[in-house]
């Protein structure tokens, strides 16, 4: 266990985020949307953990809670700080948090709404440097130019505004901004889903290249399983606020252990007209996180569901080394993955 811990950069345990539902004149809390419900995972230094799931499953909320951009309701987020060693992000005061957070950054999904249209590239990319390091003048310009070069933009663009750039270039600006403070850990929140197909590949290649040259660790939040297979070392699958499976990429794609993972993979349209189409089409809809079903949240849509699934909530357990699953029947089922 100690050896395992050495490799780790981030450990999240029992993370919960409930959004209260308020009703009536007195805004009384009548229930909770359990956006993230008892999620535990870890990320090793230098690797990419892909966090996948459908919309509303809590993957983005998890990503933001890790940075405390959203205040979690419960749980521990332990991060290995460069100076102090392991710190619990949830217990830090504002000064400490700001210091630690320089090592943790985020790249947003939509490059159109995440850049202030009234700021030049110098201001946008330089802002973290001005705020955290008080950098200014020539030094600032040089550093920003260097950052722009590292993401494949020309330093001459320094004084331009975001509107002059295409979606792919804007996403590069977002990446440069995240890199400004030499972070070790970056939450990539669907960084390519708003981009065109031909540009997606460029950004994915850029993220991999930067990971190599700066030794970055990514928490890669995405819904596209093909993209995740290309980038991630390990994959965690979420369904209605819960983590249902987590394993290495080479393990989970060919050998999924959770029926939801299996269905999710089989639903991805393959760009190959000759591929055999034996798709598992899930019945019904994603459960409502404000009013989840009893037992296993997936049981109403699961084709392997039994009585126990209706009654008992499964817990995440390590079935084989580094392969975690929360399914009552994981041992007995033999599921189909993608090769």
């Amino acid at each position, binding site marked *: 266990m100690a050896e395992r811990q050495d490799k780790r950069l981030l450990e999240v345990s029992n993370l919960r985020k409930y959004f209260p539902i308020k009703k009536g004149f007195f805004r009384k809390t009548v229930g909770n949307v359990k956006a993230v419900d008892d999620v535990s995972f870890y990320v090793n230094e230098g690797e990419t953990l892909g966090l996948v799931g459908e*919309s509303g499953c809590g993957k983005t909320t998890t990503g933001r809670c890790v940075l405390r951009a959203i205040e979690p309701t419960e749980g521990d987020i332990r991060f290995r700080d460069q100076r102090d060693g392991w710190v619990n992000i949830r217990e830090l005061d504002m000064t400490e948090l700001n210091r630690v957070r320089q090592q943790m950054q985020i790249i947003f999904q939509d490059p159109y709404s995440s850049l202030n249209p009234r700021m030049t590239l110098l201001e946008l990319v330089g802002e973290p440097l001005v705020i955290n390091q008080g950098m200014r003048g020539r030094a600032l310009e040089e550093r920003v130019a260097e950052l722009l070069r590292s993401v494949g933009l020309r330093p001459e663009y320094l004084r331009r505004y975001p509107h002059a750039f295409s979606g792919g270039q804007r996403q590069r600006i977002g990446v440069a901004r995240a890199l400004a403070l030499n972070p070790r850990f970056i939450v990539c929140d669907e960084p390519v889903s708003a981009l065109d197909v*031909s540009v997606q590949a460029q950004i994915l290649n850029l993220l991999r290249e930067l990971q190599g040259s700066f030794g970055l660790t990514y928490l890669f939040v995405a819904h596209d399983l093909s993209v995740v297979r290309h980038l991630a070392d390990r994959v965690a699958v979420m369904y209605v606020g819960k983590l249902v499976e987590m394993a290495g990429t080479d393990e989970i794609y060919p050998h999924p252990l959770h029926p939801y993972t299996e269905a999710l993979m089989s639903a991805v349209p393959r760009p190959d007209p000759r591929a055999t189409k034996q798709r598992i089409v899930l019945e019904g809809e994603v459960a409502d996180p404000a009013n989840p079903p009893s037992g296993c949240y997936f049981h109403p849509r699961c084709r392997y569901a039994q009585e126990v699934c209706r009654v008992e909530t499964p817990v995440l357990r390590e079935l084989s080394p580094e392969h975690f699953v929360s399914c009552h029947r994981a041992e007995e089922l033999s599921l189909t993955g993608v090769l």
Partner: protein
Amino acid sequence: MAADRVLLEVKGLKTFFPLDEGTVRAVDGADFTIERGKTLAVVGESGCGKSVTAQSILRIVPPPGRIIEGELLYHRYSNDEESFAMADVIDLATLNPKGPEIRAIRGNEIAMVFQEPMTSLSPVHTMGNQIMETIMLHQKVSKAEARERAIEMLDRVGMPRPSVTVDAYPFELSGGMRQRGMIAMALSCRPSLLIADEPTTALDVTTAAQILDLMRQLQEEMGMAIHYITHDLGVVAEIADKAVVMYLGKVVEQADVDTLYYNPLHPYTQALLRSIPRITEDRRQWLEAIKGMVPDPYNLPSGCPFHPRCLRVGPDCSHIDPPWIEAEPGHWVRCCQYDDGQCNTGRQA
């Protein structure tokens, strides 16, 4: 292709938007044919003109856009299923976009499903009322009959408890259910052509899979042709019989799906197929990205619009407009490389 299979022929379509900043040539040479009962997919990146092409067919191009050139030949068949006797051919491009002829076709013989079910449905009318409106506009039926038909359609698209959901407002339904409602509305008059503009893009993978299956099943039952617009090459492989690739307003390649994926001819199609991450491929490979980006619509490159990004660009590509040629039977491509004798290109490269 037998002539009696053709439903819609698009020939040399050009739809331009004259704006203050310059003319946007949204569709600048689109050629393809849609066969009866078959699915044609139109693939391309944003801004390639795939949606404007569909809007041109229905004559709902938003102003100031207009069709400058080209023919949209819609073949109308008589109802006699046995003989396939052709009644007439109408050029949709010449109709008055507000006239009675196109209004009799739009929503009736050619119907459309839009990408965003929330923004394209009326938030203040119930699902049922919106479907009934279409039915009563095109068919002489009473309100009660129309309601009956609406419920029947909702049932066919797999809406749970159709007699209840018929009175639901769109906001009460989930994204997938709204899209089912949209499809029910589009199919309520039994169109011969259904235009689907990215109907699954806004949906989750598992819901998208449901909708794709539904569209395939309805096509089998009702026999309509589908003109499917998407940017997702995976969806094309699953649903289409034939596919068309568009780049910057031009159709650059047309072929049946198998040929397009296994023997693509246009350098753009080839590059696109190489650049997509595939779920079946092992991780940690570099993707072959297409260099550069889609050019600014006001400032298009001369000659072949793809030449600045093309790996096999030749000396003539920057000034010769590539012709639309049938390189193999049924396989059309717009690239100088396949045109014998006309241009001097990087064929050897």
